[in-house]
């Protein structure tokens, strides 16, 4: 029964990891930007949420109403300035700039806030509770909610990209930037919109993680970025549902590892990631080899 529990908890945690991953995946898919500051931006989202909750006393669950627009705006501005400037130079520059940004954000959080761990207190609402299935399996409402949110975000993104006007422009620019530009699309603006969406999901990921667990300035790299990347690689590039599958596989691997020995939790996830890298480098869902 403990194994079934581990698998169920793993699937639910996988929703959180898919939420981590979808911003990374989107920015790579559209702009070919591998954003090494991805995790640190999620942590910034969590800190902003912490500030918003402290000042306005709104419940943590609703803080996303303020944090997501702030982060989306930040995403648009950063894409139009820093990231676009780096993109116009080279892929190498983009990596160097986002890595520099990651270190600066982390050091900045250490310097201006502190190294203490924080959490977004959810208070005593129903969300902190859990329900039991059978006698031994406890499912936390919060984790279930995060999973549902992740699925909704992925569904929303899918719908947005396939059916809306901006989604069409994003796909056009991702496919062929020059051709899209000839048809009158300002690709810089479209990149900005895509970054805004990506940063919005990053904010959601940060808030979800802050409610689920404690975060410190280093959470962004040692947890969020690496887990997000592992989920993307396991699931396969270019498919939003692959991202969800990747997150779920990572989550299940971690929970099964933890079941063997609690200190194997993170290691088990990485070993599955490395195994996928060797056996199926294109990921579990993608048919096309990634270059």
């Amino acid at each position: 029964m403990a194994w079934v529990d581990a698998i169920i908890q793993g699937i639910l945690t996988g929703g959180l990891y898919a939420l981590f991953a979808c911003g990374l995946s989107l920015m790579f898919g559209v702009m070919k930007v591998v954003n090494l500051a991805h995790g640190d931006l999620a942590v910034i989202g969590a800190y902003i949420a912490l500030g918003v909750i402290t000042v306005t006393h709104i419940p943590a669950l609703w803080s996303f109403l303020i944090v997501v627009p702030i982060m989306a705006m930040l995403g648009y501005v950063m894409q139009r300035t820093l990231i676009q400037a780096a993109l116009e130079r080279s892929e190498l520059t983009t990596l160097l700039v986002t890595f520099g940004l990651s270190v600066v954000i982390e050091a900045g959080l250490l310097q201006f806030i502190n190294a203490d761990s924080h959490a977004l207190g959810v208070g005593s609402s129903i969300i902190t509770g859990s329900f039991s299935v059978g006698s031994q399996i406890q499912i936390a409402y919060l984790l279930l909610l995060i999973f549902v949110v992740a699925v909704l975000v992925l569904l929303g993104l899918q719908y947005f990209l396939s059916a809306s006007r901006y989604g069409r422009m994003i796909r056009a620019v991702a496919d062929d930037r020059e051709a899209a530009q000839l048809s009158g699309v300002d690709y810089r603006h479209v990149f900005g919109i895509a970054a805004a969406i990506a940063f919005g999901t990053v904010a959601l990921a940060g808030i979800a993680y802050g409610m689920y667990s404690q975060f410190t300035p280093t959470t962004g790299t040692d947890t969020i970025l690496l887990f997000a990347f592992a989920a993307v690689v396991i699931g396969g590039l270019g498919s939003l549902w692959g991202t969800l599958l990747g997150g779920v596989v990572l989550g299940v691997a971690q929970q099964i590892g933890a079941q063997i020995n609690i200190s194997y939790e993170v290691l088990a996830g990485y070993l599955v990631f490395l195994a996928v890298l060797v056996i199926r480098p294109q990921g579990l869902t993608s048919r096309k080899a990634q270059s």
Partner: protein
Amino acid sequence: MTVATENTTRSAGKIRVTRSRRNMTWTAGGALVVVVVLALFPYIVYSGTTGIMVQGFVILTLASMWNLLAGYAGLVSVGQQAFVGLGAYFVLILAIHGISPFAALPVAAIGCGVAALPLWWLVSRLRTGYFAIATWVLAATVMLIIERFSSLGGGTGLPMPGLSGIDPTLLTAYTYWIGLAVTVLSLVTVWLMLRGRLGLALTAVRDDEVAARSSGVRVGLVRMLVFVVAGIGCGAAGALNSISLLGVQPDAAFSVQWTAKMAFAVIIGGLGTIEGPILGTLVYMVLQQELQSYNAWYLIVLGLVAIVIALFARRGLWGLVDDHLHIRLFPVGYWLWEPESSGRRGLRDPGRRGTGRRGA
């Protein structure tokens, strides 16, 4: 140093080809004097100063390795801390078995080179950003595995055995000398690698990977070689660092900050030049010493400077120096001399980074 023998005349007639634009005897003599003076430092300065300089040696060794990776082979590794940590732990393992840490250092470095082979096999298929994060995950995995061994101190680490019997003054002097040796060896290795056929291959890969491949450069093999050499260098630096800190602590040994420091030193000094990491390390050490009382500020300042330089001066501070003075401390290219015209023209100069287009 054999720099003086470089002015070999390659072609007959009035056109001469030399390895550098100026007579290198002076530079070689200068380098020799610098190394000798540096070697005498433990007799001249306080041990606090040599301690800081050992940190500088660690950073310089790491930076020249990262420069090979990112500047020449196009491999932006964010996981070099895997080798920094492994080097430290290999020394620790040998020291536990009674070998002097100083004697263990070269063995540990070679061990890191061997360990680089399976790690390369895991990540070799990935490119650019994917390679970057995958190496990062690898480093985290290596740390988690090392932490499993309680005989190596588990998650808390161990003090380095075999150092307590040595007189403190001698210990700092020994550490300093072995640090100097590691650094000089790394710089000479990088320079020799870039001078020969391999250097041409690397420079070709740096400037245009597709063109290099189509002219018969075995890009995969070249990259693997660079990854292994960088593993050895970073391992030696990690081993040196663990000796100077008198112990190993997993979180510190495998910290991504190592890669941040080496990358910033290279970006600021000049990516894709041998001189860049030296200049970058000097800038790094000055900033770190000036700002160390303000905690994390030096990393913030370094990071911001590195971002600005990556965007607006892609060949770094050394690039700016080179543009104005045409100095090359470690010549790897060739110069063509035409006696009939008054001007001297550099014909083939792989030390210079093309400012033209690179593969997007």
